[in-house]
């Protein structure tokens, strides 16, 4: 509140002072000019002289008439005095003098006297001593009238002079007062001027300091600062800009930006400057920038701001910062992060694998436990019951009966031994002790042999063998293991299918594979069972009451894979289960081995 009325009061006071100064000066000038006017003295104001000279002329003319009468002067001398007299009267009758005489109240007297001039003229022209006295009588009233007129003129002139002096004194007194006022107002104005000058100087110093500070800021800025006018001519180019563009400031000021560097010829930079001319700030990030002599681009962020003077936009300011290093650092951080993520992923995968392995191991042992408890208990029970009978009825038994029961016990023990062998095989396989000796052999032959043996063991089951018509199907495999796999698949097919259904075996040779499909009637409805059927110690729902430890398929697949092949399951909808042994096909027929080795191992 206080701050708002103080400057206003200051302005009002100043205006008042200046107004007073002007009024006083004006009135003083008026008074001075009035005095000057009053001081001019007109010739008409000198009436006393004019009148007295006329009176003197009249008197002299009168005197001259006496002298002439005495004959001491001639007619021309008299005429000369007459002329002087006439001349003085003429002056009195002329415009300005006539008016003054009217003012003095002597106009009528003058007119009266003029009436006698003709008579005087005549008397002088025809001067006669007898008329001399008459002439003097005629001249006498001039002298006396002019005497009175001069008296009155003197009084009037002195009165006029006195009043003029009064008025001048009055004017001078006013003038003195005005001068004092002017001096005071002038002094006030001088003081104000001094104060204003001091304040202005102070502000100038402040402004100078601020300017110097701004210049220092611009100069020491790490960012390049460039200013342009509306014609895009450079007006500011700081040291950072000098370094960035490698152009000194003195070569840039006043030049269009596009001539300073090709960088400014880029369209989007020109457009951004245009945007800032329109009053909107603009930003361009990560702009590639080629320094002179550098093949790799630097990267800069550009910001554009309008440069305003009041409401008018007079140009644009560009701030350019080099972000090459930040960019590189960011990229490094990103790379590092990617690397860490990869590490974590790999580690997670390892951990997942380890966990799965642990789970599989746990599952394995659970399955192993279940299998042992089930498969080993049955033969032991058989052996136990055979031995109990032998003990209880030992006296009544015939030797044949003893043999028969012992035989049954031995069979049970033999089956247990087989189970243990199988388990050990699996352990060996797991421990990597299983040897694989791959070679080229005729898989059709192997299939035919296995079929023949199966027919001997189960002559009652129909068994179809389908071999390729073109002859041997050469596979690159270990013949012993291949045969074992096939035996296993075939015995499974016989074992797990209804007794009166047929089992078929089909061998085909394709582009680079030899396939042997073993099919039997049946189906596996459960999807998990289809998945788990190749697991170790897994026994399907239809394995109940049938001997086995659930290791055959596992071993078959593992062995097949070790030879570069596989065992596949097709438990399709058409009520048939097909296991297919796939082996790599051998291209060279000469290296094929006969089946003699098979017989050796069997």
């Amino acid at each position, binding site marked *: 509140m206080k701050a708002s009325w103080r400057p206003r009061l200051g302005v009002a006071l100043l205006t008042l002072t200046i107004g007073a100064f002007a009024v006083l000066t004006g009135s003083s000038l008026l008074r001075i000019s009035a005095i000057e006017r009053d001081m001019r003295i007109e*010739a008409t104001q000198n009436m006393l002289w004019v009148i007295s000279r006329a009176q003197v002329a009249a008197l002299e003319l009168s005197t001259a008439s006496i002298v002439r009468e005495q004959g001491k002067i001639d007619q021309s001398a008299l005429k000369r005095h007459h002329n002087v007299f006439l001349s003085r009267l003429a002056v009195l009758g002329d415009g300005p003098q006539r008016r003054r005489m009217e003012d003095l109240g002597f106009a009528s007297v003058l007119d009266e006297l003029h009436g006698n001039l003709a008579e005087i003229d005549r008397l002088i022209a025809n001067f006669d001593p007898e008329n001399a006295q008459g002439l003097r009588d005629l001249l006498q009233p001039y002298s006396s009238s002019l005497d009175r007129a001069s008296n009155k003129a003197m009084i009037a002139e002195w009165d006029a002079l006195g009043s003029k002096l009064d008025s001048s004194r009055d004017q001078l007194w006013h003038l003195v007062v005005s001068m004092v006022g002017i001096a005071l107002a002038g002094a006030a104005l001088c003081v104000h001027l001094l104060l204003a000058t001091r304040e202005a100087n102070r502000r100038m110093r402040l402004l100078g300091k601020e300017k110097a500070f701004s210049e220092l800021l611009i100069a020491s800025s790490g960012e390049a600062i460039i200013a342009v006018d509306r014609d895009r001519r450079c007006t500011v180019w700081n040291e950072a800009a000098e370094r960035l563009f490698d152009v000194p400031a003195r070569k840039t000021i006043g030049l269009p930006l596009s001539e300073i560097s090709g960088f400014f010829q880029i369209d989007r930079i020109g457009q951004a400057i245009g945007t800032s001319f329109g009053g909107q700030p603009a930003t361009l990030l990560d702009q590639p920038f080629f320094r002179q002599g550098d093949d790799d681009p630097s990267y800069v962020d550009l910001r554009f701001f309008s440069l305003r003077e009041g409401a008018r936009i007079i140009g644009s300011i560009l701030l350019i910062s080099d972000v090459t290093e930040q960019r590189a650092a960011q990229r490094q951080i990103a790379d590092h992060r990617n690397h860490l993520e990869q590490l974590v992923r790999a580690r997670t995968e390892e951990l997942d694998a380890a966990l799965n392995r642990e789970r599989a191991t746990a599952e394995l042992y659970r399955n192993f436990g279940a299998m042992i408890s089930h498969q080993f208990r049955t033969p032991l029970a058989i052996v136990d019951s055979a031995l109990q009978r032998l003990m209880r009825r030992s006296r009544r038994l015939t030797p044949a009966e003893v043999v028969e029961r012992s035989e049954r016990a031995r069979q049970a023990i033999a089956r247990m031994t087989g189970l243990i062998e199988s388990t050990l095989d699996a352990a060996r396989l797991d421990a990597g002790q299983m040897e694989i000796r791959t070679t080229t052999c005729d898989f059709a032959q192997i299939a035919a042999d296995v079929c023949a043996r199966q027919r001997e063991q189960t002559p009652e089951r129909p068994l179809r063998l389908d071999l390729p018509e073109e002859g041997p199907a050469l596979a690159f495999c270990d013949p012993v293991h291949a045969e074992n796999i096939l035996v296993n698949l075939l015995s499974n097919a016989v074992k797990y299918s209804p007794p009166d259904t047929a089992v078929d075996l089909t061998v085909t040779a394709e582009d680079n594979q030899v396939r042997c499909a073993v099919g039997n009637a049946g189906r596996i409805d459960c999807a998990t069972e289809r998945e788990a059927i190749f697991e170790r110690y897994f026994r399907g729902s239809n394995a109940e009451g049938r001997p086995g430890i659930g290791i055959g398929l596992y071993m078959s697949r593992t062995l097949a894979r070790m030879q570069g092949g596989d065992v596949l399951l097709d438990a399709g909808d058409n009520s048939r289960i097909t296991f297919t042994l796939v082996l790599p096909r051998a291209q060279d027929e000469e290296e094929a081995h006969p089946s003699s080795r098979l017989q050796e191992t069997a």
Partner: protein
Amino acid sequence: MDRIISGMLTALLAMVFATAAAAGALPRPQGPTVLEVQGAIGKTNAEGAALFDMEMLQALPVARLETSTAVTDGVRSFEGFLMRDLLAHVEASGNTVTATALNNYVIDFDAQEFERYDVVVAYRMDGETLQPSDKGPLWIVYPRDQHTELQDIRYDYRWVWQLMRLEIR
């Protein structure tokens, strides 16, 4: 015959005047003397003086001046000769010119003044010859309207009328 004689006489007179002028003397005035110039002058036609009749004065280069005066109303048209022409004519060499009027009114002039201003010695006002019974035959007139500094009482008193005599010192 008479005409031839009078022509010859005129020629003779002209020759005499010319000779007198060349010898530093002025011809004598033929008519009544209206102006007498005395003092430091190079040309005379009487005992230490140069006497002029109206014809001689009117032979000087004519100067015309329109101005108001202090003692009359309105602008008046004057005809006469320049004071400096007269002074040059008589080869005046002084600094002060004293003018005396018919009524013995005496005024001193600074000779410089006649160089500075076109001061006219008028013998005609508004086309009419100035009469001795008024301001004539000669009236010293200042170019009052042409120079404001001349509108001053100290110049007004220099308007000598009924001019009779000039003395150069």
